[in-house]
């Protein structure tokens, strides 16, 4: 298990290879469909000047994401006496954000994208250009993952996006995952996909 502490350096990212198991610690946010669409449509490509609220959000996110991570997850959260905590929070399917992620990586300097199911060629190219990796989380293991999300520090866009889709700013402690797309242009998903195709073709021939 390779330990990654946010902020993560370019050298550390370059030392990672598809197939490596990692444990991520530090401050990051969740962000899924609504968050990615908003970042690209408003914060990255929206008309300037930004509204005061968007300006605050982009500055906050820049601080968190520089050398940091975004986690594709829509958590179940609990609020006791005004304090939020994470109850269950496994990764959600990442490919839905394929049209946004390369722009988010480029604009914010993200080093790690955490999700499940892998991403496509645009994200893979952005990982290579901007020195980032895609980490595959333990899909469905919501409670194991929540255990590594030790403190909720803040939340953005809660009203507008709803609880699952908001940006939850969280302190991670040894969050487990597997690098499946590295900064050297390798995608485990792409490689495995070719094997699956060959095996399916063999089964259909034998019909």
């Amino acid at each position: 298990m390779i330990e990654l502490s946010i902020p993560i350096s370019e050298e550390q990212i370059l030392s990672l290879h598809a197939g490596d198991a990692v444990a991520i610690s530090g401050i990051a946010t969740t962000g899924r469909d609504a968050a990615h669409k908003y970042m690209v449509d408003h914060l990255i490509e929206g008309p300037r000047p930004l509204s005061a609220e968007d300006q605050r959000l982009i500055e906050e996110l820049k601080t968190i994401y520089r050398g940091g991570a975004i986690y594709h997850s829509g958590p179940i959260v609990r609020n006791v006496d005004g304090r939020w905590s994470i109850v269950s929070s496994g990764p959600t399917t990442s490919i839905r954000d394929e049209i946004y992620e390369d722009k988010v990586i480029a604009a914010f300097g993200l080093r790690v994208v955490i999700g499940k199911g892998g991403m496509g060629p645009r994200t893979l190219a952005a990982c290579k250009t901007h020195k980032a990796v895609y980490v595959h989380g333990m899909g469905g293991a919501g409670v194991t993952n929540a255990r590594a999300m030790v403190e909720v520090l803040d939340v953005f866009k809660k009203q507008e996006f709803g609880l699952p889709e908001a940006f939850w700013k969280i302190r991670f402690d040894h969050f487990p995952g597997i690098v499946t797309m590295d900064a050297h242009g390798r995608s485990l998903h792409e490689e495995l996909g070719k094997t699956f195709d060959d095996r399916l073709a063999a089964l259909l021939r034998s019909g």
Partner: protein
Amino acid sequence: MTVFGHLRIGRTMKKTKVQCVATNRVDRPVFGEAVFDLVRRTACELPADVEQALRRAHDEEAPDSTARMILASFLENMVLAGEKQVPLCQDTGMPLFFVHHPPGLSHRAMRRVCEEVVVRATREEYLRPNAVDPVTDRNSGNNVGKGFPGVYFEEWDNDPISIALMLKGGGSENVGRQYSLPDDGLSAGRDLEGVRRVVLDAVRRAEGKGCPPGILGICIGADRGSGYTHSKHQLLRSLDDVNPNPALADLEARILREANTLGIGPLGLGGKTTLLGVKIGALHRHPASFFVTVTYMCWEHRRREIRIEADGTYRFTG
């Protein structure tokens, strides 16, 4: 079987409350408590057959493999969720209730109970709010919306009410597929060999996206809409049962065996177990149509069933 696509709660229901003897038992608080217990347990504890299948899959993978590490984390998650009584997965899905009831019971009254229970379960964090209006993009915040949760009814001659609940996650739902045979690209004709070919294609296309090792619910025949509904009914079957139709039993076993040679494995990152089960049903088709409908269930197959007696006592039957 009736599917209600419209929301009727609160004031509307009270005004139109059906006065029949059998409905009283649904209105009593004990009935709602039983259904709440069903939701809570379904969200937090996997059924025994699914747990056993995951343990078997874990033991079959090589000791230092990624697949075994992933399956170990699944098993750990299962234990943790049970101990803490919190939802196994953050995506508690779309709740689908399958109700069998004696004659004379109001469907609206039972639907209202299901809605009240999911509202409470959402408030108590057993369910994530998942009902989104597709026009305004607003989340209702309480898991109630038009057609949400799904409630399916069937009348039977028994006195107890049986309610099965499935929490159907979005990621796995997205990789379900419906094929219309013949399918040129897959050389799939209108026979069981054609069914085999398209189902294997569906497993390949789903790869890691539906959170494998998955379970397939399949319907051969029917119209498009009933095909999807019936494929979900198949997912209520135990992993260990044997299809009473020998031809379908053979097909289930063959597809399971062959899909597990694809190498997709846990979460699609490679491994021996791609599927935990294949369950196939068949409904009569129109002469012009031959649909094969595949619903994909993730490894965390959250389904439970309770039987509620007329006096309000209940027990888990699945």
